């Protein structure tokens, strides 16, 4: 179909048939020179096309650039915060398992990282290569290795060392709410390991080398 000046005017007035409308739009999109079409005096195709697009754009429903909105810095940051939050909650849940059973058994097989968790009445940070069994029915903690425990309430527990060559127990100990206690199976030279259960403030009484290692491991 030949795109004439009249056709373009009808297009502007919205009087074109569907076929004519398609023909005009095709012509608009085409970069081919159209020798048949005689432009109005003083106009050239590019300028006219730009004018027409401007008018058409006014009529078209506003098209939002979703890509632009998403990558707007505010939304980008908000999304990052939400993602981080979700990751954090997931990680926290993985690392701080809320364990509520009466008997809780935890084994930290890592060689370098503590295992932190909520276990019954305690928050426990279990050192690498350590294991613990908390029996809240009998009020007994069996463990081998090193740990830091923090009771959520005043409790009385018997702490028992269970490393292979050690069966020493602490006797009933009153553990006070909110205080950090360090427990370890401390191996003296030529002696059976000694069970140490110390309030964090008494950690200073340990030899400097032990104190340094424990403070580093439990981030004290």
């Amino acid at each position, binding site marked *: 179909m030949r795109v004439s000046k009249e056709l373009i005017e009808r297009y502007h007035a919205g009087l074109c048939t569907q076929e004519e409308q398609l023909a005009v739009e095709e012509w608009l999109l085409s970069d081919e020179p159209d020798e048949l079409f005689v432009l109005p005096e003083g106009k050239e195709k590019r300028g006219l096309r730009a004018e027409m697009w401007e008018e058409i754009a006014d009529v078209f429903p506003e098209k939002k650039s979703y890509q632009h909105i998403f990558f707007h810095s505010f939304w980008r940051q908000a999304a990052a915060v939400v993602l981080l939050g979700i990751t954090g909650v997931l990680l926290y849940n993985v690392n701080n398992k809320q364990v509520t059973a009466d008997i809780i058994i935890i084994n930290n097989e890592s060689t370098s990282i503590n295992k932190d968790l909520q276990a019954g009445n305690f928050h426990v940070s279990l050192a690498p290569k350590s294991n613990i069994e908390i029996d809240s029915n009998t009020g007994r903690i069996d463990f081998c290795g090193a740990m830091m425990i923090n009771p959520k309430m005043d409790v009385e527990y018997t702490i028992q060392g269970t490393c292979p060559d050690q069966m020493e127990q602490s006797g009933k100990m009153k553990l006070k709410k909110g205080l950090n206690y360090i427990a370890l199976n401390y191996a003296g030279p030529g002696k059976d390991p000694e069970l140490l259960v110390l309030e964090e403030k008494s950690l200073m009484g340990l030899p400097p080398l032990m104190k*340094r290692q424990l403070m580093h491991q439990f981030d004290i």
Partner: protein
Amino acid sequence: MIKKPRQISLYLLLAMIAFTVGCAERESGQSDTSQKKYSIYTMAEDGQEFLTTTDSLSGGSLEPEKSGVKVDPQRIFYDLIVHKGYYYRLDAKTQEFLKIGIENKKFTTKSRVKLEGFSAIDNYNWITPDSLLIIGYDDKSAEVKYAKIHLENMTAVQGKLPLPAPSGSYNWTSVGFSHFMNGQLLVGYTYHAAHDLLGYTTSDTMYVATLSYPALKNLKKYKDSRTTYPGGVNTRQSHFFTDENGDFYFITCPGIALGNNPAKPTAIMRIRKSDSSVDPDYFFNLSASPIQNNGYGFWYLGKGKAIVRTERKALFTGMGDHYKVPHFDFYEVDLIKQTTARLNLPLDKGTARQCVIVENGIAYIAVNSDSAGSYIWIYNPENHSLKKGLQIPGQTDYILRIERLN
């Protein structure tokens, strides 16, 4: 031009006001502690720690929870170096060396200097009256590091000491003393086998390296297996001194609270000024003396006499109660005759304590006794008299440090 008498009076008045304000500002700007002679660091029964200052240890009483300043952060009693009105310590987490004053009853960090790779001070030593040499083992790099720190402007120069890294079954080094003698630096050290968090022990051998100074090149090395762990961590307690002749004495600490190799005896050894070498013929075996135990603290009284603080192995079971059971004795030792005499003091508690000050031949000894209270005792070695001085009543459980502040 000032002409009228009234104008002159006004200027005089203004000058007086300016002078008074200036003085007041200077006074409030000074640290509260810098005024007093002695600093006392205590821990109360509930674990709260206080620093209190006083001009006299000879009598009276002092309640830290009333007149002291709460230590911030707590549990730094084994970290401090006290000098000319200020407290210095290494913050192991930030690896910063801090200069702390106490102002308006608060711990205030006055200045700081970053010490990369420094996570602990094993030993400190004075290069000049205002510059320090600190030495610490860095387990990450297995190197013994040092820093020379100028305390006035808080600048530091860091490096590492050329001591052989631990090898074989050993994975840790402790430097127990460093001492400048005849233009050289003598460093006493030993090795440990640390078993994760489950304990450690110490090599049967102690070493003394002689390094050139300031180049810090190895000149010679002394080795001895009669005892181990020469010296100790001197921010915790005193373990060595120089006598009037310039001879250097140190105690060795194989006991469970330091070397953890208690089958070895605690001994006093000597480095003579005449040849800067360990005197191989001088070995004062304290564990074989009437003391019959290991010991750690070591302070000079003067005139060839010293005080040692020794444990009683029958009274504690291990590290679990070592710090809280009163079991420590104080002995006067004669360094030349190699004799010992127990001071008739109540049994003392606390694994390591900076608890002796000697001034003008008189020893002031802080003793924590569960039954006889907490006192500074005054010992006169001339007539062997002992009497109670300053009392620290109230809630105090441990007197952890006493030292000269000014």
